[in-house]
Protein backbone atom coordinates (compact mmCIF):
# COMPACT_ATOMS: atom_id res chain seq x y z
CA UNK A 1 0.00 0.00 0.00
CA UNK A 2 0.91 3.63 -0.18
CA UNK A 3 3.48 4.93 2.29
CA UNK A 4 3.24 8.44 3.67
CA UNK A 5 6.34 9.69 5.43
CA UNK A 6 6.91 12.96 7.20
CA UNK A 7 10.04 14.74 8.24
CA UNK A 8 11.38 15.74 10.59
CA UNK A 9 9.72 13.52 13.20
CA UNK A 10 10.41 16.06 15.93
CA UNK A 11 11.09 19.76 15.84
CA UNK A 12 11.80 22.29 18.55
CA UNK A 13 11.65 25.97 17.66
CA UNK A 14 12.08 29.22 19.46
CA UNK A 15 9.06 31.47 19.21
CA UNK A 16 9.29 33.62 16.10
CA UNK A 17 11.27 31.11 14.05
CA UNK A 18 10.20 29.72 10.69
CA UNK A 19 10.01 26.06 9.73
CA UNK A 20 9.25 23.70 6.87
CA UNK A 21 7.61 20.33 7.32
CA UNK A 22 7.76 17.76 4.56
CA UNK A 23 5.43 14.99 3.50
CA UNK A 24 6.46 12.37 0.94
CA UNK A 25 4.07 9.84 -0.51
CA UNK A 26 5.05 6.74 -2.39
CA UNK A 27 2.32 6.66 -5.00
CA UNK A 28 -0.05 8.95 -6.82
CA UNK A 29 -2.82 10.28 -4.65
CA UNK A 30 -6.11 11.94 -5.40
CA UNK A 31 -5.63 14.59 -2.76
CA UNK A 32 -3.64 15.65 0.24
CA UNK A 33 -4.64 17.28 3.47
CA UNK A 34 -2.64 18.80 6.34
CA UNK A 35 -3.90 18.56 9.90
CA UNK A 36 -2.76 19.99 13.20
CA UNK A 37 -3.40 17.92 16.28
CA UNK A 38 -3.33 20.21 19.27
CA UNK A 39 -2.20 19.14 22.74
CA UNK A 40 -5.80 18.30 23.60
CA UNK A 41 -5.95 15.75 20.79
CA UNK A 42 -8.19 17.66 18.42
CA UNK A 43 -7.48 17.26 14.70
CA UNK A 44 -7.79 20.59 12.96
CA UNK A 45 -7.88 20.79 9.19
CA UNK A 46 -5.24 23.20 7.88
CA UNK A 47 -5.15 22.73 4.13
CA UNK A 48 -6.87 20.66 1.53
CA UNK A 49 -4.23 20.83 -1.19
CA UNK A 50 -4.06 18.38 -4.09
CA UNK A 51 -1.59 20.61 -5.91
CA UNK A 52 -0.25 24.12 -5.99
CA UNK A 53 0.18 26.52 -3.12
CA UNK A 54 -2.23 27.88 -0.54
CA UNK A 55 -1.75 30.36 2.25
CA UNK A 56 -3.68 31.00 5.43
CA UNK A 57 -2.13 33.60 7.69
CA UNK A 58 1.25 32.43 8.93
CA UNK A 59 0.80 29.02 7.36
CA UNK A 60 1.20 28.03 3.77
CA UNK A 61 1.39 24.71 1.94
CA UNK A 62 2.67 23.53 -1.41
CA UNK A 63 1.99 20.19 -3.05
CA UNK A 64 3.93 18.98 -6.07
CA UNK A 65 1.87 15.98 -7.03
CA UNK A 66 4.11 14.94 -9.92
CA UNK A 67 7.04 14.64 -7.51
CA UNK A 68 4.91 13.16 -4.71
CA UNK A 69 5.59 15.57 -1.92
CA UNK A 70 3.99 18.36 0.00
CA UNK A 71 5.46 21.05 2.23
CA UNK A 72 3.94 22.94 5.12
CA UNK A 73 5.52 26.27 6.01
CA UNK A 74 5.08 27.87 9.40
CA UNK A 75 6.34 31.41 9.74
CA UNK A 76 6.82 33.44 12.92
CA UNK A 77 5.95 30.42 15.01
CA UNK A 78 3.97 30.85 18.23
CA UNK A 79 3.64 28.61 21.26
CA UNK A 80 0.09 27.81 20.19
CA UNK A 81 1.53 26.14 17.06
CA UNK A 82 2.81 23.32 19.24
CA UNK A 83 1.36 19.90 18.61
CA UNK A 84 1.60 17.22 15.96
CA UNK A 85 1.26 17.98 12.28
CA UNK A 86 -0.07 15.21 10.07
CA UNK A 87 -0.35 15.03 6.34
CA UNK A 88 -2.86 12.57 4.96
CA UNK A 89 -2.92 11.21 1.44
CA UNK A 90 -6.34 10.69 0.00
CA UNK A 91 -6.90 7.56 -2.04
CA UNK A 92 -9.84 6.69 -4.19
CA UNK A 93 -9.81 3.07 -5.28
CA UNK A 94 -12.64 0.94 -6.59
CA UNK A 95 -15.24 3.50 -5.57
CA UNK A 96 -14.08 3.79 -1.98
CA UNK A 97 -12.19 6.59 -0.33
CA UNK A 98 -9.90 6.87 2.61
CA UNK A 99 -7.03 8.88 3.97
CA UNK A 100 -3.72 7.36 4.90
CA UNK A 101 -2.00 9.40 7.55
CA UNK A 102 1.69 10.15 7.66
CA UNK A 103 3.80 9.48 10.69
CA UNK A 104 3.51 13.05 11.93
CA UNK A 105 5.89 15.83 12.93
CA UNK A 106 5.83 16.69 16.60
CA UNK A 107 6.45 20.42 16.98
CA UNK A 108 7.24 22.24 20.19
CA UNK A 109 7.56 26.01 20.15
CA UNK A 110 9.35 27.51 23.11
CA UNK A 111 8.52 30.94 24.50
Amino acid at each position, binding site marked *: GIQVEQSPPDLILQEGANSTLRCNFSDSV*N*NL*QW*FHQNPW*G*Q*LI*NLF*YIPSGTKQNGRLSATTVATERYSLLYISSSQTTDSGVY*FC*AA*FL*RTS*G*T*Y*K*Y*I*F*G*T*GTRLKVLA
Partner: protein
Amino acid sequence: AAGVIQSPRHLIKEKRETATLKCYPIPRHDTVYWYQQGPGQDPQFLISFYEKMQSDKGSIPDRFSAQQFSDYHSELNMSSLELGDSALYFCASSLGGHGYTFGSGTRLTVV
Protein backbone atom coordinates in the same frame (compact mmCIF):
# COMPACT_ATOMS: atom_id res chain seq x y z
CA ALA B 1 -20.91 26.09 10.92
CA ALA B 2 -21.97 22.61 11.97
CA GLY B 3 -19.16 20.22 12.77
CA VAL B 4 -18.79 16.50 13.30
CA ILE B 5 -20.09 15.62 16.74
CA GLN B 6 -18.75 12.68 18.68
CA SER B 7 -19.96 11.31 21.95
CA PRO B 8 -18.94 10.69 24.57
CA ARG B 9 -15.76 12.77 24.77
CA HIS B 10 -14.24 10.47 27.36
CA LEU B 11 -15.03 6.90 28.29
CA ILE B 12 -13.53 4.59 30.87
CA LYS B 13 -14.31 0.90 30.66
CA GLU B 14 -13.00 -2.22 32.28
CA LYS B 15 -11.47 -5.12 30.40
CA ARG B 16 -13.99 -7.40 28.71
CA GLU B 17 -16.68 -4.72 28.81
CA THR B 18 -18.47 -3.26 25.80
CA ALA B 19 -18.36 0.31 24.55
CA THR B 20 -20.40 2.22 21.99
CA LEU B 21 -19.10 5.39 20.37
CA LYS B 22 -21.36 7.69 18.41
CA CYS B 23 -20.69 10.02 15.53
CA TYR B 24 -22.97 12.63 14.01
CA PRO B 25 -21.59 13.82 10.65
CA ILE B 26 -21.94 17.24 9.14
CA PRO B 27 -25.43 17.58 7.62
CA ARG B 28 -25.60 16.37 4.02
CA HIS B 29 -22.25 14.61 4.24
CA ASP B 30 -22.65 11.14 2.78
CA THR B 31 -19.54 9.38 4.04
CA VAL B 32 -18.41 8.61 7.57
CA TYR B 33 -14.99 7.30 8.54
CA TRP B 34 -13.66 5.89 11.78
CA TYR B 35 -10.03 6.12 12.84
CA GLN B 36 -8.16 4.82 15.87
CA GLN B 37 -5.14 6.67 17.23
CA GLY B 38 -3.06 4.90 19.84
CA PRO B 39 -0.73 6.85 22.15
CA GLY B 40 2.04 8.46 20.11
CA GLN B 41 0.74 6.90 16.89
CA ASP B 42 -0.77 8.30 13.73
CA PRO B 43 -4.48 7.70 13.13
CA GLN B 44 -5.24 4.32 11.61
CA PHE B 45 -8.24 3.81 9.37
CA LEU B 46 -10.84 1.40 10.76
CA ILE B 47 -13.93 1.51 8.59
CA SER B 48 -16.05 3.79 6.43
CA PHE B 49 -19.64 4.05 5.31
CA TYR B 50 -21.09 5.64 2.22
CA GLU B 51 -24.82 6.23 2.09
CA LYS B 52 -25.34 3.86 5.04
CA MET B 53 -23.45 0.98 3.45
CA GLN B 54 -20.01 -0.14 4.50
CA SER B 55 -17.66 1.14 1.83
CA ASP B 56 -14.20 0.21 3.06
CA LYS B 57 -12.59 -1.67 5.89
CA GLY B 58 -9.19 -1.19 7.41
CA SER B 59 -7.49 -2.61 10.46
CA ILE B 60 -10.65 -3.08 12.47
CA PRO B 61 -10.61 -6.00 14.93
CA ASP B 62 -13.35 -8.61 14.68
CA ARG B 63 -14.46 -7.54 18.16
CA PHE B 64 -15.47 -4.20 16.70
CA SER B 65 -18.47 -3.51 14.53
CA ALA B 66 -19.98 -0.37 13.13
CA GLN B 67 -23.00 0.81 11.26
CA GLN B 68 -24.51 3.93 9.81
CA PHE B 69 -28.15 4.64 10.48
CA SER B 70 -30.91 6.19 8.39
CA ASP B 71 -30.17 9.65 9.85
CA TYR B 72 -26.52 9.16 8.79
CA HIS B 73 -25.15 9.00 12.30
CA SER B 74 -22.76 6.16 12.91
CA GLU B 75 -21.92 3.99 15.89
CA LEU B 76 -18.78 2.02 16.61
CA ASN B 77 -19.40 -0.92 18.90
CA MET B 78 -16.47 -2.51 20.68
CA SER B 79 -16.83 -5.71 22.67
CA SER B 80 -14.51 -7.72 24.90
CA LEU B 81 -12.40 -4.63 25.43
CA GLU B 82 -8.68 -5.07 25.90
CA LEU B 83 -6.13 -2.74 27.43
CA GLY B 84 -4.69 -2.18 23.95
CA ASP B 85 -7.98 -0.70 22.79
CA SER B 86 -7.23 2.40 24.84
CA ALA B 87 -6.94 5.11 22.22
CA LEU B 88 -8.42 8.21 20.73
CA TYR B 89 -11.20 7.31 18.30
CA PHE B 90 -11.97 9.81 15.61
CA CYS B 91 -14.91 10.05 13.32
CA ALA B 92 -14.75 12.13 10.16
CA SER B 93 -17.27 12.92 7.49
CA SER B 94 -17.09 14.10 3.92
CA LEU B 95 -19.28 14.76 0.93
CA GLY B 96 -18.32 12.59 -2.00
CA GLY B 97 -14.90 12.00 -0.49
CA HIS B 98 -13.94 15.65 -0.82
CA GLY B 99 -12.09 16.88 2.22
CA TYR B 100 -12.45 15.37 5.64
CA THR B 101 -13.74 17.13 8.69
CA PHE B 102 -12.87 15.38 11.91
CA GLY B 103 -14.79 15.28 15.14
CA SER B 104 -13.09 16.06 18.43
CA GLY B 105 -12.64 12.38 19.15
CA THR B 106 -13.58 10.03 21.95
CA ARG B 107 -10.82 9.11 24.35
CA LEU B 108 -11.36 5.53 25.46
CA THR B 109 -9.44 4.23 28.44
CA VAL B 110 -9.66 0.53 29.25
CA VAL B 111 -8.60 -0.37 32.78
